């Protein structure tokens, strides 16, 4: 198999077990021949034990003992498959328990979100919630899969009705690329193979769409940002004076000779070289891991950010963000948390909860400002020192952060800077 230029595409799936989400993933893996014989045998045995007719494809996605016993998904699980065109990573997020927390997690790295709708029920509250989260996390591409078309006689009319329902609210979303797809995950229609039952549908089946979708331009190539993870000082023969700043390019493009500023100190220098293992490169772009050396001997350490002189992020100590609360413990008013933003940790405080968002109606909630698990709110964050931030809509790396509770060290919230 010739895969040299193949890209990696990460997608997340939203929908409950009832929407046929697990069946869809099982179908994708099965029809793309990504399931091994021993896995299939094990699923056949379990299907028979449970008294199911045929092979229950949904069982492929069960991971933990309790999930198998209860037939639910508890935690985000990752699945992999490869076709001759691309490698895929699926973040399979549970539909029932802690849906927001898990979907936000799965969505944070996704290029594409698949939202499932049961063709019999049409758009329900949950659909609106999933679409909202996909939009909040700025997933560039959304595929709305209208599933179980076999149960509505593969009706084109029903399909169009559901699209109309979705479009009633989708104008409020920030996702630019929304596509619709009529499928039957159970029978395989329009998943890997084009549907024989829905000749009226002129679009490509799901896999083809995933294989050919243009994702290279999803990454910000304008704002050059390089958060320093660690400093490499080898102190060995041949590299006595070497001082490399190791990190992964967050966005933009860096080249040797670029005039750069180190933030927050403001020292300026020029890029001397961009190094990888035993070689150098002419250009570094996201998400490349490299180390950068500078012409001048200036003080740079973890938490600093190297940027180009003519395009700097704004250092801010107070900013607004959309916050998703991920912890069982309710947020304490004006409580202090450690904020982790790129490679920089600072003490911070939720200065104010401006409003919460009802993820089903998209309405603001102004009279209840307690942040509980799965709540989404607009907040004002204050930090002890300035952070080099961009807006999340421009930059998913320098526009995002997490909050960590110092008492438990747990990750309690995820934030997207406005």
């Amino acid at each position: 198999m010739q895969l040299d230029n193949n890209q990696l595409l990460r997608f997340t799936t939203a929908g409950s077990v009832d929407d046929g989400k697990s069946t869809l993933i099982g179908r994708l893996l099965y029809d793309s021949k990504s399931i091994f014989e021993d896995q299939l045998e094990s699923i056949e045995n379990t299907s028979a034990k449970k008294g199911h007719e045929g092979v229950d494809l949904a069982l492929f996605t069960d991971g933990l003992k309790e999930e198998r016993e209860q037939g639910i998904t508890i935690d985000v699980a990752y699945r992999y498959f490869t076709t001759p065109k691309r490698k895929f990573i699926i973040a399979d997020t549970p539909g029932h328990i802690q849906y927001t927390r898990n979907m936000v997690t799965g969505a944070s790295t996704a290029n594409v979100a698949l939202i499932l709708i049961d063709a019999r029920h049409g758009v329900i509250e949950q659909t609106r919630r999933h679409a909202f989260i996909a939009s909040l996390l700025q997933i560039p591409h959304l595929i709305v899969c209208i599933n179980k078309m076999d149960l509505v006689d593969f009706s084109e009319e029903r399909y169009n009705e559901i699209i109309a329902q979705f479009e009633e609210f989708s104008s409020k979303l920030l996702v630019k690329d929304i596509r619709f797809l009529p499928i039957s995950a159970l029978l395989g229609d329009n998943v890997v193979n084009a549907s024989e039952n829905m000749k009226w549908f002129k679009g490509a089946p799901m896999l083809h769409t995933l294989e050919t979708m243009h994702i290279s331009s999803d990454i910000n190539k304008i704002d050059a940002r390089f958060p320093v993870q660690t400093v490499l000082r080898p102190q060995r023969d041949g590299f006595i004076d070497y001082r490399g700043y190791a990190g992964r390019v967050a966005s933009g493009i860096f080249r040797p000779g670029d005039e750069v500023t180190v933030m927050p100190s403001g020292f300026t220098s020029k890029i001397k070289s961009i190094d990888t293992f035993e070689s150098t490169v002419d250009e570094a772009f996201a998400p490349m891991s490299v180390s950068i050396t500078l012409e001048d001997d200036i003080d740079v350490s973890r938490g600093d950010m190297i940027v180009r002189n003519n395009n700097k992020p704004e250092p801010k100590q107070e900013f607004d963000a959309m916050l998703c609360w991920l912890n069982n413990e309710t947020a304490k008013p004006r409580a202090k948390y450690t904020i982790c933003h790129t490679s920089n940790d600072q003490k911070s405080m939720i200065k104010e909860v401006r409003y919460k968002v009802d993820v089903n109606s998209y309405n603001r909630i102004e009279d209840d400002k307690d942040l509980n698990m799965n709540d989404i709110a607009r907040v004002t964050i204050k930090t002890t020192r300035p952070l080099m931030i961009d807006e999340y809509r421009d930059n998913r790396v320098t526009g995002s952060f997490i909050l960590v509770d110092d008492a438990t060290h747990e990750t309690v919230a995820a934030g997207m800077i406005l």
Partner: protein
Amino acid sequence: MSKYYLNYLDELESEAIYILREVWAQFDNPVIMFSGGKDSILLTHLAKKAFFPSRIPFPLMHVDTGHNFPETIQFRDDLIKEFGCQLIVGSVQESIDQGRVAEEKGKNATRNALQITTLLDAIESNKIDCAIGGGRRDEEKARAKERFFSHRDDFGQWNPKNQRPELWNILNGKHFEGEHFRAFPISNWTEMDVWNYIKRENIAIPSLYFAHEREVVWRSDSWIPVSEFLILEEGEKVETKKIRFRTLGDITITGGMESDADTLEKIANEVSTMRKTERGNRTDDKRSESAMEDRKRQGYF
């Protein structure tokens, strides 16, 4: 299409390097768990890239069950010499001698589960706060739920239902004294990715992975190598076969498969046509539906 994108192997490599550098930055005393298998060799290779021109800043830690392939130990020692790393060995035999664990009895007795105690003891006595492992999410269903940074309580236990959510590429390794982390930089690699990368980078791996002649016995659907630990059962006979191993574990539980693949190219081709998972030849995973999850909860990697 613009040229500003990475192919999937480069992206996986970059992700792993990012995670290894985060481990180095966030922990005081990390180690690489080194088994001598392809995944831990790959990990060591990636660590070399992540810190070049510095040397790999982590010691390698090997949990030695005493049931090794001799080739694995030789390979380990050569690699240590080449990379100039420190080696920490946790010995299961010592744990047995000290009465910390008891040897399993019976036909399919292995030292696989005994490793957990030795591993946790070694982590504690060496004050290790992060053990980097070559676990991959595609290997097994419990592993599919793992984080890059996976928290362990002060008993070394994993609680899959209460894991820290991991968003974007922000890794939270904050911990209290006595707790530790497992880090899995190659979580997103599949078996095929590993082989394609080893082939591309021409990474040296133990000869056991290549087809070779060996004395073996047919047991549990695979060819179990003859060793001093193997007790022949009635009806079993020793044969010489051309085999290779798809994964490497203890010599007592690792089954080989008949193969002519004696180059990385041929191995990668062979793996791409396999219809069974790689852990299918591991008797440790065949014990029950949740064998891996149960061991992981106790502190296995």
